């Protein structure tokens, strides 16, 4: 749970509350991908991601 607390503190510090719904949707979709794929290989351009 501490990760959510930290993300919330970060959004407050950056004043980027609008990121919350984006984050929720992306994390949900991303979570599905994790479950579906089961692999976590960094993309080709690893400096960026």
């Amino acid at each position: 749970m501490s990760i959510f607390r930290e993300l919330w503190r970060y959004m407050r510090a950056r004043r980027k509350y609008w990121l919350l719904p984006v984050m929720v949707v992306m994390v949900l979709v991303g979570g599905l991908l994790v479950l579906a794929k089961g692999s976590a290989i960094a993309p080709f351009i690893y400096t960026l991601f």
Partner: protein
Amino acid sequence: MRVLGLSAFYHDSAAALVEDGCIAAAAQEERFTRRKHDARFPRSAIAWCLGSAGIAPGDIDHVAFYDKPFLKFERLLETYLAFAPRGFESFRMAMPVWLREKLYLKKLLLDELRTLDPGVDWSQRLLFSEHHLSHAASAFYASPFDRAAVLTLDGVGEWATTSLAHGEGANLSITREIHFPHSIGLLYSAFTYYTGFRVNSGEYKVMGLAPYGQPRYAQRILDHLIDLKPDGSFRLDMQYFNYCTGLTMTNDRFHQLFDGPPRTPESLLTQREMDLAASIQAVTDEVMIRLSRSVAAETGHRNLCLAGGVALNCVANGKVLRDGHFDQVWIQPAAGDAGGALGAALAAWHLHLGQPRPPRADGEDRMQGAFLGPEYAQADIERRLQAMGARMQVLDETGLTEATAGLLAGEKAIGWFQGRMEFGPRALGARSIIGDARSPKMQSVLNLKVKFRESFRPFAPSVLAEDVSEWFDLDRPSPYMLIVADVAAGRRREMTAAESALFGIEKLNVVRSEIPAATHVDYSARIQTVHAGTNPRYHALISAFKARTGCPVVVNTSFNVRGEPIVNTPEDAFRCLMGTDIDALAIGNCLLLKSDQDPALQARYETTFEQD
């Protein structure tokens, strides 16, 4: 008080220890794990840093990480959002990594730190520095300057790709930034990819290839890819790039603009790749020069510090220096992400803890010649080499110097392993392979039989600092091999008409100067000045070579084969001796001749490393 700086999880993990504001130790993880650009948590580098200082993990007062993962995640999400629905493929690849690992980076760091000492509350000691602030701190605080403008340029950190900072005393503040996706580092990497080299390691090759070509695409780059303003600020036209949404750097529109698909890696290099390399190098030079001019005008400073991966572009650095808008230019030798570990620690010391800069000798930087890594005592070297089955002579220091100088003068390739290992990507005479710069055959021997790498790649000269201006068009120190300048006119050899007419790689075998092995096809050289104060043994060796030959210049390349991290231990060095055509190894006071070794110990191993 002690601060441990860390970089990890992207590329070039490293640890750096700052004690009471002084740089005590710094090393890259790859040197210990033997995996090039190792991105894993730098356990070995930390263990070595602590061991060298004789301290326990609990003695560390603060741990400073070199960037801010949430800001990076923010950039990722905003980029995907901006380009949606394009980018799903990249999103699909990146999200699992983030959701499983990178989002919990703080926890990951704390878990790793707890393995060092479970009794310490590391959460109270862990700090995070922004990526470009880490770079800027590594440049300014380690520099010899009390006041300076600081320019940092790289691929991307969190958001920033280019930053301008102002440093004065212990204060350092970033005043302007250019943000992702507009990045000179990524533009250069796009051409690295397009010319068939590996992003993040092949950029040196593009820089080395550039002098073989003509910048005939430079205007096309300026017309289409980058909107470069007079003050050096820029925007990229993202229609031509794929790195925001895809898994490659460039897209079809880019390929059409430059008349064809990317070169297949390891395929034959043509004049086209050489011209592309020359073109992107010319554009990078122009960006750097314009940025540095506007920084000089804006800040009024006469000193400039540079860091970030683009600051390893020593050709552009040389042009900035010669442009004359700054009296002095100092470049952090570990300008890439490994140096971020050092910068994070220095930023924590000066900015978070509010400590003043320690006193230093006038004009001297705080990097100690970049010799900040492991070293081995003579008895330990002998024990390790004997265990490997090596046959050696043990000499006194003068005897070793004279014997090595004699071998050098006889055109032998020598592994030179002395003192503390370098921090940063360049070998500076502690873990180097050296040769006679006067020898016309040395470049191809070193490239093809020792390093097993592409024949076009140039080698750098190490020159006695006091002789630099007699041999090169340079009137100041360049201890970190980060300035390119021309071989002095009086040392050059005029080309015949037939030689001048040669194109591209055909130019390679033409003897162009008194030191052909270290003279690139455009008469340039990536100069390292050698100083008695920071590297006395290397200085003594080149002095002995000069006494024999009249030439104070040797060729210096990193002690490794292609794709291998620079050697760290005596065992690594002996393995390299036995796996390549190096003729001799001078390590501590031990001299090993290849011809004396047991042939049964010879083992080629270059294929065990992934090609860079």
